[in-house]
């Protein structure tokens, strides 16, 4: 399971680095929020997987929707002149740490 995750992540990284795509500077901020949201979704998924409450639909839809919503929210905030992406950063950061904490505890319990 962990090997699979790391393996896929590595393959993704390699593909990403090999791709000749370079985001325009303007979109870099939204991309960072999207990455944060995706990271949160993945950790949430792992946590759910360990809690045996994993739902494929929720995981996939959560990943996609959270990613685009975060990016869209950041963009919307920029249009409004409100730094909404900060809210996204805080929320996703907190959730990532929570998820990581829960995963850590499960792992500690397990081994």
């Amino acid at each position, binding site marked *: 399971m962990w090997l699979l995750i790391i393996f896929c992540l590595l393959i993704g990284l390699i593909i990403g*680095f090999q791709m000749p795509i370079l985001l325009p500077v303007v979109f870099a901020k939204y991309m960072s929020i999207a990455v944060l949201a*995706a990271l949160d979704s993945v950790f949430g998924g792992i946590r759910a997987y360990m809690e045996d409450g994993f739902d494929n639909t929720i995981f996939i839809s959560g990943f996609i929707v959270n990613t685009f919503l975060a990016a869209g929210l950041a963009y919307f905030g920029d249009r409004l002149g409100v730094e909404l992406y900060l809210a996204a950063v805080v929320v996703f950061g907190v959730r990532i740490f929570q998820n990581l904490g829960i995963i850590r505890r499960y792992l500690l319990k397990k081994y």
Partner: protein
Amino acid sequence: MRNKGAQISIALVCLVLGIMLAIQFKTTENIESSLLPERVTELTNKLTLVTEERDALAEEVISLRNKLQNVRQNDQALADLQEELQKANMAAGLFEIKGTGIILTLNDSAAGLQAGENPNVGLIHDLDLLILVNELKASGAEAISVNGKRIVAMSEVRCAGTTILINLDKIAPPIIIKAIGNPDMLDSGIQMRGGYLEQLKHLGVQTNVQKSEDIIIPAYSGTMKFNYARPVENKEKVES
């Protein structure tokens, strides 16, 4: 292996996440290497400075170009002026010049004075010289001297007792008139049949015309003073 579908979806999502992360890394790296906020201000300041410097240099280039053009024009003007001066000096007779032409030698009649004869007949008069000089001018002489006195625009040929005045200098026979021009033209002009030189010959004046390839005519040695004459500033008024 609790749930195969969950693993596949997690693997897929991780793949996508990896791609996103990689792109983000690349982009961020690119931004950081080029556009840190402090760097932006620094670069903006630098750009402003460099732009100002460039503008100043561009202005300098323009002014230097103008100066260069002025210098060139001055050079041109100077050369033109020099040329004009040369021409004017030539016309005014202020240069010693040489060239082809004729030498006309005159002397009073050698024949002894007979009783009852007018003593003026065999002598060279100022009017004779004036007419001969005029004849030479009409034949295309470019420079004329009489006994070494350059004939210029203001030169007078005038009788003064027993001598002749040219440029306020006294001359006396033998008289040597030198003229620069086409030697054949001058020769035929001055020795024209029925011309003034022939008349002088008949009166007994000794004459000798000699073509020469190398005649030297001295410069006008008098002063050029203009106490009354002033150039008119507006040329068009003169013409109209």
